[in-house]
């Protein structure tokens, strides 16, 4: 069984973030991606592999070449990532608001 990688660990790496940005513009082959870096092809392949395992990238065969593009499902997971944190604060502040609204009358006295 392959270990399920952590999406957030995947995007914590600056090289992998750059790869995401590159591929977001248009689907690219691994060699086209590697041309943007000073690292070896092998290093970049490893990064691509991690991003694919996390379902942030997906492969598409076009003729003899493999192209990588963004996987919208994986990316949505990141976009939704902050929402539970926001919701937690929103709930807390709603409680604060309700609580203090009952004091508005006293406050105005």
């Amino acid at each position, binding site marked *: 069984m392959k270990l399920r990688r952590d999406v*957030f660990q995947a995007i*914590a790496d*600056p090289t992998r*973030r750059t790869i995401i940005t590159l591929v977001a513009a248009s689907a690219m082959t691994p060699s086209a991606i590697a041309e943007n870096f000073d690292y070896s092809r092998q290093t970049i392949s490893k990064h691509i592999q991690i991003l694919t395992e996390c379902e942030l990238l997906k492969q598409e065969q076009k003729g003899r070449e493999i192209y990588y593009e963004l996987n919208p499902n994986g990316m949505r997971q990141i976009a939704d*990532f*902050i929402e*539970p*944190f*926001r*919701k*937690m*604060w*929103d709930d*807390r*502040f709603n*409680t*604060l*608001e309700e*609580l*203090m*609204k009952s*004091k*508005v009358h006293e*406050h105005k006295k």
Partner: protein
Amino acid sequence: MEQKTKINALEGKQELFITRDFDLPVELVYKAYTEAAFVSQWMGTKVIKLENRNHGSYVFETSHEGKVMFKANGTIHKLIPNQEMVRTFEMENMPIGVQLEFLNFEKVTEDKSKLTIQIIYKSEKHRAEQLKLPFAYGLNMAHSKLQEILEPKI
């Protein structure tokens, strides 16, 4: 509808901003942060100590069935009534570390106010740990929900 609570966490930074518009006079929002009885009600935690002054400190604690589930503490660095609070905040036994918080209380009208909290973490990684917390909790909830649905069929 415009969201009343907003989070701004820019990629590659070790800080984040929380903003909230309140239908409350600024004095009452400030009170909610500085009076122990109010803090404990909206934060849902017991206030063990809360010294509202420059260089004062505070301790929050939440217990469940006699066991301490959550403990947080910090130091109030600077306090300007109805305007500003600068404090540290730390959740004990968590990988998030100490955070520095700048709270800005702003009067919009007599009955409306705005709270802006800037939180600075030790590193981007520490910030990610904080953001992950409710996210992971949400995933767990979803997971147990899934189990609930699946279990009777197994």
